[in-house]
């Protein structure tokens, strides 16, 4: 039986529940992208938060909190086969407990660890590679990451730029995180607003105020000045900043490619 879910994390966990308590799953797929075949029957799973929560608790208690974080990262990855990787990994995990993670080269464990590493790496990368611009009312940063890491970087910026209002826009997925700042009275923090995620397909790429242009120019100049000409090494640079990230990076825009 192929289980089809709605694309939410809870939906995925509900499928895992049905795998154990109804009929074993031959595969889990996202409803939107499912290709029916003649050999296997399929059923659409309705997301049930209560069932999902039971699976959630079970993973945490019977495998480990690390395993839970790991499958969440895999769920956020852009791998087309991620649901089945999670299923296989959890099947082993419920059998072996926390020891499953010690089998680094096991065919059910290795791909999950690998995807987890990729998502973690990209999250870490974008903490640095995101650029904000000041629109006068709020800070606006745009990115097009490989994986759906928007929620993973939000807490970092909510802490770092707590006093600002900002939007981080994932152009690829047409989503954004909006943070509305904090309210203060006589230097005492009144309310700490949490960030929230919303659909967003508005583009702010061309809007640059005059003051913003000044700081951007300074940054581009600094970027050029700090490089040592006799150590010129574009290969090393592209190892750290792959070309796909450069579209949104100010320092790679226009004439500022590499050395002048």
């Amino acid at each position, binding site marked *: 039986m192929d289980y089809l879910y709605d694309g939410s994390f809870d939906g995925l966990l509900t499928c895992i529940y049905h795998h154990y308590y109804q009929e074993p799953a031959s595969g889990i797929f996202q409803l939107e992208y499912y290709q029916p075949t003649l050999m296997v029957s399929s059923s659409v799973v309705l997301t049930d938060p209560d069932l999902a929560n039971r699976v959630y608790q079970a993973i945490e208690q019977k495998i480990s909190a690390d395993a839970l974080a790991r499958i969440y990262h895999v769920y956020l990855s852009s791998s087309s086969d991620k649901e089945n990787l999670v299923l296989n990994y959890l099947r082993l995990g419920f059998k072996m407990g926390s020891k499953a993670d010690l089998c680094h080269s096991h065919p059910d464990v290795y791909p999950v660890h690998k995807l987890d590493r990729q998502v973690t790496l990209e999250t870490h990368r974008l903490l640095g590679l995101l650029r904000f611009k000041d629109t006068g009312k709020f800070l606006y940063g745009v990115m097009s990451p490989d994986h759906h890491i928007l929620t993973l970087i939000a807490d970092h910026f909510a802490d*770092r730029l*707590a006093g600002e209002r900002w939007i981080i826009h994932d152009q690829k997925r047409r989503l954004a995180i909006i943070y509305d700042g904090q309210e203060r009275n006589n230097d005492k923090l009144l309310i700490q607003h949490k960030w929230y995620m919303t659909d967003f397909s508005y583009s702010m790429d061309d809007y640059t105020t005059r003051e913003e242009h000044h700081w951007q120019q300074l940054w581009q100049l600094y970027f*050029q000045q*700090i*490089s*040592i000409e*006799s150590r010129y*090494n*574009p290969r*090393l640079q592209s190892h750290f900043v792959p070309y796909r990230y450069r579209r949104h990076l100010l320092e790679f825009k226009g004439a500022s490619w590499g050395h002048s």
Partner: protein
Amino acid sequence: MDILTQLDILAGAAKYDVSCSSSGVTRKNQGGTGNTRSFGICHAWSADGRCISLLKILLSNDCVYDCRYCVNRRSSDIPRASFSPRELADLTMQFYRRNYIEGLFLSAAVEKSPDYTMEKILRVLTLLREEYEFQGYIHVKVIPGAEPSLINRAGLLCDRMSVNVEQPTENSLRLLAPQKSLPTMYASMQQLKDKIQEHKVDHRRFRHTPRFVPGGQSTQMIVGASQDSDLTILHTTQALYQNFGLKRVYFSAYVPVNQDSNLPALTTVPPLLREHRLYQSDWLLRHYHFKAEEILDADHANLETEIDPKTAWALRHPEFFPLEINRASYEELLRIPGIGPKSAWRITSQRRVAAISADHFKKLGVVFKRAQYFVTCKGIYPGNKPYDPAAIRRVMLPESPFKQMTLF
């Protein structure tokens, strides 16, 4: 002078400093702007492939010293500029909130006197930390010879401090930087070490003890400006780690900027490969439990350029290998070329549940190309060449792109 010109001159003058790391301190935002993360965050990589984490800049490049290797030496004919503390603080804040940088790396040429310069640095720190409530990372260069009380005050406001020893021996230093001396610099390092220790002990007893240079201290050495061997450099490096508890020793391949009889010619290419091999050795010292005496000895006073220092060590010690991967201790695993701390950890943890065979290597993160000659898996030697150091060395050498053609 407008800020564009100032930035142009003072960033260009700071670029030969190597350190740019923003690691070692975790601090949450306490009602200002910024935080720090212990893993450090790089924000950009310039065209030479070096990371940009901190805004690396000089407060001024107007120097009274005349160090021969330095761009900013008194006798060099270059445009001079300096920032006012507020200009620099504003620049830092504006760059920081746009997420261009992780913080500030503030250094300065010795303007008028060491004390005068250190006081000016202190003004920037106070402005940023107190008025702007900036809580990002700050790395400050200690101006050698400055009043200890000034250094102590700066240490309470910044995350990392560094004293650059520049040369591994007093002799080379005298030749290249006549106004600097190792004993003065060691005194500053000792002072930092003692203060860090003192605050750590106090912090355990009194929760509100302010933190003093929580990110520790680092230093930098120029490679290739003097005649010192790699052995001398590594010995000094090891001594620095042991005596002063440094977090990092950075190496900087000498880029010729001045014409001088004591220095290599202006046309010299920076010894980048040598610098790379020194960094590899530095990693062996810090993460692989090697001793400087093991990496090099009197007969091998310089690192080989073709082969990395760990493989070179392994080839000189055939009696140590091959090691059985399922039985070797963590320490022994670290000695195998192609295995690092992470893969060694994965091997020791997987061994608890299942034996390891050679086809697991890739998934465990082991570089099979190198490791195959130095291990056995369940008693089987996986290498495609017999265990003979000379033969292994031949396959390990990089292929030369140029071959001598025979005439006949």
